[in-house]
């Protein structure tokens, strides 16, 4: 199939449609309005459902209902709306219901700014709702990757019967790039064994989101913990670029990683041995990529994020177990770190002035 020049948000919407999303509900918020707008135009023509919910709470609750009867479902939002969806994401997780949730992130806290930022790392990765559960979190760094990860997110959600978050920053949502779109999926997992879609010719079912007795609930939590553990073994995705001989590591996700890659190339051209570690799955986090770094060779890591304070740095530090110093380079308020800024900071660090 040929390539298409398309905006990030619209590409995400089209990828979802091709992945077999039959139900979308959402509430307008910048910088992701193009997703519901695109869905409202495309879904009805395909005989699928688009609903503009009265709020993010209602929208995610609609997903919960549609998923309970077997639909592939998606919603999208940004920070303030994600906060309202937190209730529903937690309920989806507790009821083992698959769903894809796209966060095209802006700068918070509160209303914050509508300009692109990466201030929802903690919220997406550590606690997208109450009660201690995890969801996979995908972080695309370009429009093609946003397409691929959204497309695949539906399969992971169905495989695990768990929500999946796609965390794309506002730059990826607004940027136009040339992408190849995947084929329409035609084969879908069989959900007839668990959906609550009417008990004709079988015993009635309850979509469980709680348990009456302590033992059942604890057993359930243990089984989910086992699933999270298995992600760490099987599902980690990370890009490692020129890491082998690197004495300095740049790290970041999404747009920042893309800018950092340019900095790596320029610093290499100047003879500095710099590499890049770019987490693609923020959950499961690629701790191993950092743990493997040899402290005898790697002198420092610079973590670049569109967030003040930087957030992913805590996981990077966990990865290196304090054996390698990790420095922050954060911009916020809609500012993007420039590759020149990264180069300057990297040189300061190499001269022993990092963090000053």
């Amino acid at each position, binding site marked *: 199939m040929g390539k298409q020049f398309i905006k990030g948000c619209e590409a995400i919407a089209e990828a979802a449609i091709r992945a077999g999303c*039959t*139900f979308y*509900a959402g509430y307008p918020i910048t910088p992701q309005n193009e997703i519901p707008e695109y869905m409202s135009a495309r879904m009805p023509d395909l005989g699928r*459902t688009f*609903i503009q*919910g*009265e*709020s993010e*709470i*209602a*929208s995610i*609750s*609609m*997903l*919960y*209902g*549609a*998923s*309970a*009867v*077997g*639909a592939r*479902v998606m919603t999208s939002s940004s920070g303030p709306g994600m906060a309202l969806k937190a*209730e*529903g994401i937690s*309920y989806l997780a507790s*009821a083992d219901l698959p769903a894809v949730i796209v966060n095209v992130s802006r700068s918070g806290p509160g209303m914050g700014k509508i300009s692109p930022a990466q201030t929802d790392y903690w919220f997406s990765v550590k606690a997208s709702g109450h009660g201690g559960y995890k969801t996979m979190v995908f972080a695309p760094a370009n429009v093609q990757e946003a397409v691929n990860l959204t497309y695949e997110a539906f399969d992971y959600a169905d495989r695990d019967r768990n929500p999946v978050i796609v965390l794309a920053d506002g730059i990826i949502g607004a940027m136009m790039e040339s992408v190849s779109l995947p084929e329409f999926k035609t084969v879908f997992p069989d959900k007839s064994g668990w959906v*609550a*879609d*009417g*008990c*004709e*010719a079988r015993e*009635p*079912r*309850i*979509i469980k*989101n*709680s348990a009456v007795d302590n033992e059942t609930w604890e057993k359930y939590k243990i089984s989910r913990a086992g699933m999270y553990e298995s992600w760490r073994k099987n599902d980690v995705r990370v890009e490692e670029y020129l890491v082998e001989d690197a004495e300095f590591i740049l790290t970041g996700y999404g747009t920042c990683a893309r800018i950092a890659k340019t900095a790596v190339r320029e610093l290499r051209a100047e003879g500095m041995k710099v590499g890049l570690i770019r987490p693609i799955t923020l959950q499961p986090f690629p701790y191993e990529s950092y743990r493997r770094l040899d402290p005898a060779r790697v002198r420092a890591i610079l973590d670049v994020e569109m967030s003040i304070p930087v957030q992913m740095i805590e996981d990077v530090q966990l990865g290196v177990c304090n054996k390698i110093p990790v420095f922050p380079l954060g911009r916020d308020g809609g500012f993007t770190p420039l590759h020149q800024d990264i180069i300057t900071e990297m040189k300061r660090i190499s001269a022993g002035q990092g963090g000053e």
Partner: protein
Amino acid sequence: MQKIYAKPESLNKVSSPYCPGCLHGVAQKLMAQALDSLGLREKSIIVMGVGCVSLGRTYFNMDMVPAAHGRAPAVATGVKRIRPDRFVFTYQGDGDLAAIGTSEIIHCANRGENITTLFINNATYGMTGGQMAPTTLVGQTSTTTPAGRDPKTTGYPLKMAEIIATLEAPAYVARFALNSPANILKAAKGIETAFRMQVENKGFSFVELLSNCPTNWHMKPLDALATIEKNMIPYYPLGEFKVRK
């Protein structure tokens, strides 16, 4: 021997989880009878609210999707849009529907979703121990209105049936009481009418049922029935507010 009475098939043969004298059980039996008589059980998906309604989890002999507190109408929207061939109804208390879930019920009704909502108004939060509900009557004591509900600071009890009836889309809106055999018979008929609206694809139907909470009203069951008659019905008039032909 001729069988003249049996438990509806739509209810499981388990003992009632409700307090003695609580009318939740009556409401559930009426729903179950209506489902049985319309042959809907196997096509039904009940979307369960949060509160004492959800004690009925083990009671309903059909597929069930429990919702978060107040969100049942939105959840039911998702269910019904994907499976328009199924019979979908929500069962919600007054805290669930008229406080935390006011937005969801209004917009679901306003979209005219082809589902049915059964709304149990017992003028209190039963499950959490008798706090003020949006439907608590003026002067009524509760654990958060120890001196009686004062409209100066808490406003007036919400008349949900009347509010829903102002909307264009709903097909059927009515209020009944469960305090006497005569009223229960009317409620049974009303619930069946509401269910028929959905079966005939006429759109959103809403039935409010005046109920009780002997435990948190601190009353004997018979006194609780008398209180519905004396205090609730005068404020919450019974009848059909909207019936689509």
